[in-house]
């Protein structure tokens, strides 16, 4: 697709007049999806999807269009030229945008990661047999994903990768669940089967009857998957400079009221893993690393070039939505084998579910515990617990109440598929809290 994209883009850019500025982008995938319920196939299919986008700027006016392509150069070129003509007609009636970002050539990136994936003709027989004997539900996604953009200033960026993921849950007769994701770029049948069998062993830990615990404050361990959900909240009215400026961010207390998080908490954007493109939809290329919170203090926010224009700041080439693209939280000192001992007595939460700001400006988040969560006494797991609602603030669980951080970080891959298969994930360790508010 790379050659197709750059060839068709060049033809389109050659049609521009001197006062027209154009950015062209492409996003697409060729994916196999298998939806599994009770270790059997519920739905199976393939999706070949690709769309191109164009942003035209002329006389400080801006208009955007995106459209599905047929991957036929002749047909698609005709469609693109028709859309470009429509944009030219519409743009003259739009108001001027003093904040619009003209395309520039910041240098180009070209990253292609080739994997070794299961042939779709073999996937069902490779995946299903080892699942027998358990109630397993999940989604298999496999194939290539590509992203590119180019602009009339000469910049060209390309990123493509071949990946697979099986995101799944195992469920026992007591309706207790273990959540796992087996993901990668190179398929290894033996490794996969070992991984599934290991999950089956974890499920056996949930055979004890659940304990109901009362609402209140509890010493709590939150495993990496749960911490990843909490960090994800920073992308939604958190670390965005624009959200802070416009009064819609949980970080305003850090900016305006001198609040800080725990010295144990540090977070950065770190693109060194290569799991996501380093360029944004404007084609701007971020630094490999951007420290955001260091030892609890807010050092940087995510600033798009548009926000920089609006508030006279320096851009760090954040995405237009100023969300985290490759977050990495710093590890601490607690070894994995010491987690239960350090927790001593309290709750052990492996996963969280359905988080939302209950008071965004106050930094308060509500959500549920989910999957393998336990009551722990004197450093030993006693029993699973019934799901509980939590409602607590980032200034507590990443602040005053954060006691320690584990020494092992893991990548929680982003397996979402809204609009297309997501890339990357959140790299973070687990956390031990002096207290955590469980409310219902």
């Amino acid at each position, binding site marked *: 697709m790379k050659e197709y994209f750059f060839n068709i883009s060049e033809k389109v850019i050659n049609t521009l007049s001197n006062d027209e500025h154009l950015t062209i982008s492409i996003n697409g995938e060729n*994916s196999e*999806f*298998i*939806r599994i*319920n009770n270790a059997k*196939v*519920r*739905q*199976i*299919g*393939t*999706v*070949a999807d690709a*769309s191109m986008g164009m942003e035209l700027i002329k006389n400080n*006016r801006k208009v955007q*269009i*995106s*459209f*599905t*392509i*047929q*991957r*036929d150069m002749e047909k698609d070129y005709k469609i693109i030229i028709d859309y470009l003509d429509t944009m030219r007609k*519409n743009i*003259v*009636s*739009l*108001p*001027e*945008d003093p*904040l619009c970002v003209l395309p520039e050539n910041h240098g180009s990136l070209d990253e292609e990661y080739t994997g070794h994936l299961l042939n779709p003709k073999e996937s069902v027989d490779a995946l*299903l047999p080892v699942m027998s004997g358990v109630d397993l*539900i999940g*989604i298999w*996604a496999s194939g290539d994903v590509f992203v590119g953009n180019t602009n009339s200033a000469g910049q060209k960026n390309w990123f493509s990768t071949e990946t697979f993921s099986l*995101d799944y849950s195992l*469920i026992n007769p007591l309706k207790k*669940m273990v959540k796992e994701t087996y993901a990668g770029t190179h398929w290894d049948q033996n490794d996969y089967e070992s991984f599934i069998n290991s999950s089956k062993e974890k499920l056996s830990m949930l055979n004890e009857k659940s304990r109901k615990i009362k609402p209140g404050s509890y010493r709590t361990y939150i495993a990496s998957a749960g911490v990843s959900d909490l960090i994800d909240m920073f992308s939604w009215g958190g670390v965005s400079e624009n959200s802070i400026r*416009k*009064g*819609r961010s949980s970080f305003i207390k850090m900016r*305006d*009221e001198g609040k800080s998080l725990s010295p144990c908490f540090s977070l950065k954007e770190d693109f060194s893993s290569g799991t996501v493109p380093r360029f944004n939809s404007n084609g701007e290329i971020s630094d490999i690393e951007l420290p955001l919170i260091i030892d609890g203090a807010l050092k940087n926010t995510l600033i798009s070039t548009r926000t920089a224009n609006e508030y006279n700041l320096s851009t760090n080439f954040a995405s237009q939505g100023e969300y985290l693209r490759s977050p990495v939280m710093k590890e601490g000192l607690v070894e994995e084998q010491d987690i239960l001992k350090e927790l001593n007595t309290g709750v052990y939460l492996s996963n969280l*579910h*359905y988080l*939302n700001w*209950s*008071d965004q*400006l*106050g*930094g*308060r988040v*509500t959500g*549920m515990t*989910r999957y393998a969560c336990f009551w722990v006494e004197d450093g030993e797991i006693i029993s699973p617990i019934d*799901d*509980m*609602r939590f409602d607590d603030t980032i200034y507590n669980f990443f602040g005053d109440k954060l006691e320690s951080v584990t020494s092992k970080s893991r990548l929680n891959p982003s397996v*979402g598929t809204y609009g297309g298969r997501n890339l990357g994930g959140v790299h973070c360790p687990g956390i031990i809290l002096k207290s955590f508010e469980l409310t*219902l």
Partner: protein
Amino acid sequence: MNLVEIISKIDLDAEWFGLREYKENTTYHVIRDKNPLSNETSIDHGIMVEVLKNGQFGYCATSDLSLSGIQRAATTAQESALRASKYSVFSFESNVRPKSKGEYLTPLELPFDSLSAGEINDILMKANDWLLNDSRIMSVSAMAMLVETTINYACSNGSDIHQKINIVGSDYSATAKNGQIIQTRTDGRSGNQMGLERFNQDLVREKCNKVSSQVIELIEAEQCPTGEMSLVLAPDQMMLQIHESIGHPLEIDRILGDERNYAGWSFVQLEDFGKLQYGSDLMNVTFDPTISNEMASYGFDDGGFKASKEHLIKDGVLLRGLGALESQERSEVPAVANFRSCSWNRAPIDRMANLNLEAGDSSFEDIISSVEYGVYMETNRSWSIDDYRNKFQFGSEYGKLIENGKITKTLRDPNYRAITVPFWNSLSKVGDESTFEVHGTPNCGKGEPNQVIRVGHASPICLFDNIQVFGGA
């Protein structure tokens, strides 16, 4: 494209196959703080081929609209179905894709080409001016969303369906600051099937004036009190309440476990239908894709099943779920026409469409005057519920304190939490037709691979007794 003709040319050895062509044009115009933020159109166009082979459906989604491209997709879908058929969750027959013919069109007053992009921008720019009517307002935004969806569906059994749906959404929002207190008030970001009559300037101005005056009320307001008290919910909060605590738990595919790895399971069991006292006897809930201006109205679902109004809950008793024909075969619970997909590149699953709480007989004044101490809440701003749809916590933008039968003051940061069945059984008054409003949201997420879909929820104002209410951080 003539799908019937293409069907006749496809070469397959299958029990059934079908084509669903989906083309959707979505345009967002946004003016924020008097600067144009977005004038963006997306055009999503492709075909999903579904094939039933050996009792298993397989699909292939392609944007290659040539006959040879569609034939390749059909062959691929058949091969997928065949490979998976030895591991099928359920062996289906072609009766889950009934033969249907017909069409559906959204009724419009003003068609989408009645205003140019420039004219819509002019209205939104004026809306920014109307919203910015106090120096304490720090940011404003006005948004227009125009969606035009064309769905053509044809099958090997002779089905031939054409549907064209027009949806218009809007939002007007303002954020204001008073010392350390910052509050945002919106118009609810709702949408309906309708034309550009939504952008009548008098109507827009009225909405903006309400938003800007109420955001100033909010920055001067007290924090919502904490305690167990009466709770009155406006229709734009009921929308979320219905969606999360009735809609999702009644989805039959969810009860059958398809969603357990993602959105979750349900506290509702198959044996609950016909028996469970879901709420008080004032509770009447319908699946109704026939209301002309509601967001998820249509003539046929994406499996070709003709849509009709059905009671899901009558006098508080659970009667029927949100499951289409595939789920009916698997569960033996009577179906509704809710087999829906978000686009050509996703397979249909059980979804909400229009899910409504029917009006009762209490006026707004009756409801407020019956409350000794409680809070009235408008416009959802926070939502979270567990994976069985039991324990929820929701918050609203705008609250009013009710004391001794009268509204006394504005409250900021109102929230409440409860458990689904006890909550609905505490429903003690249901508003009449004069309080009934039709709302909709484009953002219901579900399914693996994920799909975000539009749903409609209509409701009157409702009163609930003895609910845990609380304020901000």
